[in-house]
């Protein structure tokens, strides 16, 4: 696709997405204007009013951006550095209106300062917003809709198969038999493929990139600030788990670095809050092997000298961490088949595997792969 063409497309989609908002907004405006008396508001409870305020559906000066334009309510795929509505709701759940106001009106970070400029809300309005946020806090946000598309497709293919078969044997409307046969073969084959893919994906989380409680970006830490992986994942060389850094470790830097370039103070404050309130940070686990698989980081990162990226992808390029590989057994074995064992450096191998070592030194073989020393055997990982 050519670049201009893509741009046009993006613009078109953007407008399409904005459209419902604009329609809604204009409607809302007109309602307010037509019905100036407060009896309409009377029917709205405070949560509803808060919602309208938050979404900018009520009279707000045009120059103000509505809250929702930065603090998203719905799940979005891209990274939004600003705290989401739910985040804010959680933070201010037990705070008073005054505190809420002070934060809202007297911005802390640079970015916030820019956008919150000239905001003025009455206490009443702030109360509404707060009660709306309260509601958000209590409700489960980001409801993931079941992916019905697959199911519809599956049933559609089923219907096609039925029709093809019925015609093939009974109705015989189609003159060329090859057509229903082809339809059958294609549809049935596709169904099988869907099932197979679905079955293989069971328990796998390839491309899983959940929203984390703190908007932690590996890109900023590892690439921009050039922090080594092992600075935080301290136990990778000695233990089976690489270790998710304990919260206190974050403070090594964030005692000083109080404000981020992208997210301002909000995200970093969560670390301080966790330490102060003695609450844990509940990260969402991404890379996870089933219980019957034993995987040791020490074996792979320390002994095997594998780079983190070989399994985890280019983490240092990720704002939102994502599982890159499917972590299936076949994937493990592929690597075991290819990877050479470090016979020259590590005394364990050269002393324990004498025969192979001799062959290697005599040049009979050029490398010993993991498979050659039992890397495909069950009890290496399953016990």
């Amino acid at each position, binding site marked *: 696709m050519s670049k201009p063409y893509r741009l046009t497309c993006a613009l078109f989609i953007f407008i399409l997405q904005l459209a419902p908002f604009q329609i809604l907004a204009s409607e809302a405006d007109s309602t307010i204007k037509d019905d100036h008396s407060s009896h309409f508001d009377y029917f709205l409870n405070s949560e509803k009013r808060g919602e309208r305020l938050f979404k900018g559906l009520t009279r707000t000066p045009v120059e103000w951006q509505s809250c929702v334009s930065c603090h998203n309510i719905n799940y979005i795929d891209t990274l939004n550095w600003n705290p989401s509505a739910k985040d804010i709701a959680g933070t201010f759940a037990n705070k008073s209106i005054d505190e809420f106001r002070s934060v809202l009106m007297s911005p802390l970070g640079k970015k916030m300062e820019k956008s919150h400029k000239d905001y003025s809300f009455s206490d009443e309005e702030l109360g509404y917003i707060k009660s709306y946020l309260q509601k958000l806090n209590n409700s489960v946000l980001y409801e993931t809709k079941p992916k019905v598309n697959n199911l519809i497709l599956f049933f559609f293919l089923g219907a096609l198969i039925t029709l093809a078969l019925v015609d093939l*044997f009974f109705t015989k409307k189609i003159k060329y038999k090859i057509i229903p046969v082809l339809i059958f073969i294609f549809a049935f084959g596709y169904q099988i493929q869907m099932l197979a893919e679905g079955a*293989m994906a069971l328990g796998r989380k390839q491309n899983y990139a959940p929203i984390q409680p703190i908007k932690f970006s590996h890109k900023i830490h590892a690439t921009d600030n050039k922090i080594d992986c092992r600075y935080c994942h301290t136990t990778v060389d000695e233990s089976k788990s690489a270790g998710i850094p304990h919260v206190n470790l974050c403070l090594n830097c964030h005692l000083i670095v109080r404000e981020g370039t992208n997210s301002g103070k909000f995200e970093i404050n969560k670390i301080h809050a966790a330490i102060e309130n003695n609450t844990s940070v509940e990260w969402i686990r991404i890379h996870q092997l089933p219980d019957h698989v034993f995987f040791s980081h020490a074996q792979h990162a320390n002994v095997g000298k594998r780079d983190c990226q070989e399994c985890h992808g280019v983490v240092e390029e990720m704002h939102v961490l994502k599982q890159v590989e499917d972590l299936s*057994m*076949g*994937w493990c074995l592929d690597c075991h088949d290819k990877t050479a064992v470090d016979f020259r450096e590590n005394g364990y191998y050269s002393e324990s595997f004498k025969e192979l070592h001799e062959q290697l030194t005599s040049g009979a073989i050029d490398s010993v792969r993991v498979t050659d020393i039992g890397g495909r055997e069950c009890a290496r990982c399953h016990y």
Partner: protein
Amino acid sequence: MYVSPIREPLVTGNKTYKKITDEISAPIEGKPGKAWYAGITLTVSALLFGLAMMGYTIWNGIGTWGLNKTIGWGWGITNFVWWVGIGHAGTFISAILLLFRQKWRTSINRSAEAMTLFAVMCAGLFPLIHMGRPLLGFFVFPYPNTRGLWVNFNSPLLWDVFAISTYFTVSLLFWYVGLIPDIGTIRDRIKSKFKKWIYGLLSFGWTGSAKHWQRHESISLILAGLAAPLVLSVHSIVSTDFATSVIPGWHTTIFPPYFVAGAIFSGFAMVLTLLIITRKVLNLENYITVGHIESMNKIIIATGSIVGIAYITELFIAWYSGVEYEQYAFLNRATGPYWWAYWIMMTCNVISPQLLWIKKLRRNLVFTFILSIFINIGMWFERFVIIVTSLHRDYLPSSWSMYEPTIVEVGIFIGTLGLFFTCFLLFIRVFPVIAIAEVKSVLKSSGDKKDKSEKH
């Protein structure tokens, strides 16, 4: 056409082609009697009970069976081997007797083959439900998967999977190919439009064209040629479940022939059990004559004697081998806690068939029926003796143990009996129990009308 002057007629009662068609199709066209309804009620309730017990097993675990750390297989595998054995008669009759040009097979091969299929269905259930994780039973198929794993081609149990499924498929093909002309017959006779449509569909558009018949004959013969070694292979492979192991009493090279003979033995017994009733109830005495029964009885003596010799050979070899474990295993069979099972087996399988040397008994329907039941029981106990009494006292006396079935295991067995008879009862209502076309083709040569036609 050469007609043996001393052979008795295979079809009696001066039949014409028309009469044959009418009489054999009668059960399909008429309304079932009360006996049939009573029968199917009984068998379906047995089946439902069995299904409930299977569900209970899968839900709660194999612990609901009477097995234990020492005895990993009990009734389940006993029933499996028993049913597979029974499933041997049908294809044996159709295939091997076809190859040997035994014309008397024509009256009994259809129902025997049907019985084979039902028995193999019953048998196939057991390996599945005896698994600890039947939901993962598909692991036994070598399908490509993301784990990169295949199955273990060294395992007799895997050979079983292939053998039983191949056997079932080939038997089904063989049976159905034979059925096509007869379904054509039914299609052309049936009045109800809907049924006509169904039978039309099932008859695959059979017309009776000479070219079709030629191909049909050819394929029947070659399928028979393939099925004959298949029949022998299936029970041989089942026997390797035991023969390739190290357990005394299992670890025996005699097993393959011994199992095959036993299988045909028990299969014929089951055919007799079914047909003696069927011929009576469906008025088919002229097609399944006493002569047929006698012929089958002769096979029973032959195979029964082979089985008997195998039993005695086993004992001899156990003694002659000088292996103390082997010697003990056989001593334990005959005199240990399960002595009664051994002696039931001996009585039913070795002693009772020898009575068939007497012609009068061989031709006596009541005796044959009772004997066939005896043999069925005896053959069940043969497998029980092999499996349970070998396992319960093997190498280390510290692990010796006893086995008692629970109601769950018994219920599953009853369930498979229910399945088997339900299928058979449905079969006799739906398809001709005797191969119409084949009987017609032997009518001239082996019917008792032969003198007349020769004069003609």
